């Protein structure tokens, strides 16, 4: 069951403030990195929703993000339809595709689920690579960003676009929390803990899995739209399974099933990548070592480790503080 606690709120506030500060003060390169982090954050929130709260470890979320990006590019750049409509279609189409994948894969578990989602991802990759309408290896270019000039915002400006991505990531976080704390999300958690029992209680398990996978796909599609708007050019590489693999690494690095953790993971991953690639091409190697260290530590990622150390302590401090506050109020009342 997803629960907020003092540490989660604290980290969330800290991350938001750091991102806001960066968005308002950074120069071009810093803004690019921030945007990259925020787009990855949206993708890993989508993945954590199914993997961390449904036990559905998906290896097609990169491909879903790619689908979102391509649908947006096709509808906006090729068909010339207004970006808001293109965005909505991209999110909807990705959601439907994800729902179907979720429904088909709902009966498989563990390694079989991973392989089945990988197969779907590879199919999407191969299709996009080969169908001429997607531009093949060359990809598609000339993608435009959302036009917010009505509100006096020019998204072609890096700073505005970074702030826009921050707003989207915040909204997606809120939507994810709401989903996990809805009847549907509660049932999904029940299914992860004990699928047989949920079925025996009368729940149509495949529907719950497919519905949440569909919602998660919509979020992944939205991440794809942002990615397409960010770079304004897309290629089939976006659908490559390594993107899904990286997203999974980020979720595990940050803390599976915590929502807040993957956000930390996204920031750590992108920063690590840029810092390390400045002095060696083998940044993958270093990220690999960090991941192994985190996994070997036995903690649930960076955030899981922090929560195990300080979560309880912070919670008690907060409880003490409220109690003291209440006592003072009683005294002042008297």
């Amino acid at each position, binding site marked *: *069951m997803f629960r907020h606690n003092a540490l989660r709120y604290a980290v969330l506030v800290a991350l938001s403030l750091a991102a806001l500060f960066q968005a308002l003060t950074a120069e071009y390169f810093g803004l690019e990195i921030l945007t990259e982090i925020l787009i990855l954050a949206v993708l890993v929130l989508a993945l954590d929703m199914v993997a961390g709260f449904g036990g559905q470890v998906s290896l097609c979320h990169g491909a879903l993000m790619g689908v979102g990006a391509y649908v947006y590019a096709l509808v906006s750049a090729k068909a010339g339809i207004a970006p808001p409509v293109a965005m909505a279609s991209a999110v909807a189409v990705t959601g439907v595709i994800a729902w179907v994948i979720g429904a088909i894969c709902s009966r498989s578990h563990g390694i079989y689920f991973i392989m089945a989602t990988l197969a779907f991802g590879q199919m999407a990759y191969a299709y996009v690579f080969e169908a001429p309408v997607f531009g093949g290896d060359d990809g598609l270019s000339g993608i435009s960003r959302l036009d917010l000039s009505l509100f006096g915002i020019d998204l072609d400006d890096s700073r505005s676009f970074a702030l826009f991505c921050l707003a989207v990531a915040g909204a997606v976080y809120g939507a994810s929390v709401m*989903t996990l*704390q*809805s*009847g*549907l999300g*509660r*049932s999904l*958690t*029940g299914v992860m*803990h*004990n699928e*047989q*029992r*949920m*079925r*025996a*209680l*009368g*729940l*149509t*398990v495949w*529907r*719950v899995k497919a*519905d949440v996978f569909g*919602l998660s796909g919509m979020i992944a599609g939205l991440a794809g739209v942002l990615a397409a708007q960010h770079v304004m050019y897309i290629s089939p590489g976006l659908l490559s399974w390594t993107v899904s693999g990286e997203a999974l690494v980020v979720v595990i690095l940050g803390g599976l099933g915590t929502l807040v953790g993957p956000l930390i993971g996204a920031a750590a991953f992108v920063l690590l990548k840029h810092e390390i690639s400045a002095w060696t091409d083998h940044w993958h190697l270093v990220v690999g070592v960090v991941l192994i260290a985190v996994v070997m530590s036995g903690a649930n990622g960076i955030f899981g480790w922090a929560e195990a150390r300080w979560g309880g302590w912070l919670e008690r401090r907060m409880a003490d503080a409220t109690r003291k506050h209440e006592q003072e109020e009683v005294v002042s009342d008297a």
Partner: protein
Amino acid sequence: MLETRNLDKSFGAVHVTRDVSLKLERGERRVILGPNGAGKTTLFNQLVGELTPDSGSVHLAGEDVTALPVARRARRGLSRSYQKNTLFDGLTVEENLSLAAAVHTGNASQLWSDSFTKPEVHEIVAEVAEQVNLMPYIHARVSEISYGVRRQLEVGVALATRPLVLLMDEPTSGVGPEMSKGFHDLLNNLPRDLTLLIIEHDMDLAFDVADTITVLNYGEVVFDGVPEAARNSKLLKEIYLGSWEDA
């Protein structure tokens, strides 16, 4: 209310259910007795749909449900508890009960509202917690409560779907005598129109709570009647003395 006709099931060469025909009236409390490996749990699995019989049929409230999947039978009012605890381990007692109540009240797949905050879910959770004496543990996680309390929760979760027919697979297995006594009280707390099918090892308890008794041996119904008749049955004594003493 619940009926089986000529139910038959084999696992390879092992014939575990032999031509079992049972009939439970509404509100009937029937206890299933039988030695280890007699096929009691396997019968339950076929009743709820977790196993498909090789032949024969299952009827719930007058309708043939043999072809219905587990979840749909459950939604028609068939609920069960398991011999081996089948709980939501990381969650609290309240959350365990809420998940079940949410399914029953139709809140389990809603995106726009939180099933756990629904008054109708709260109402069921409070009532069931009262019935199975879980109130003192309501906010404890499954990992924090004792085995005996988990057995109570196992029944509580099954009850929280407000079933018409409740199947209980050895609800008192592995708990001490005072808990078994508590279970007797628990049964007295349940509505009289709830149809109960209980697998029970404890003979005294069985005779105490049963309206009717079915004895299974090697997958076959060897006795079907009222407790008084069972008490005097020679066949039952043989099976009982033969293999239950050491159980």
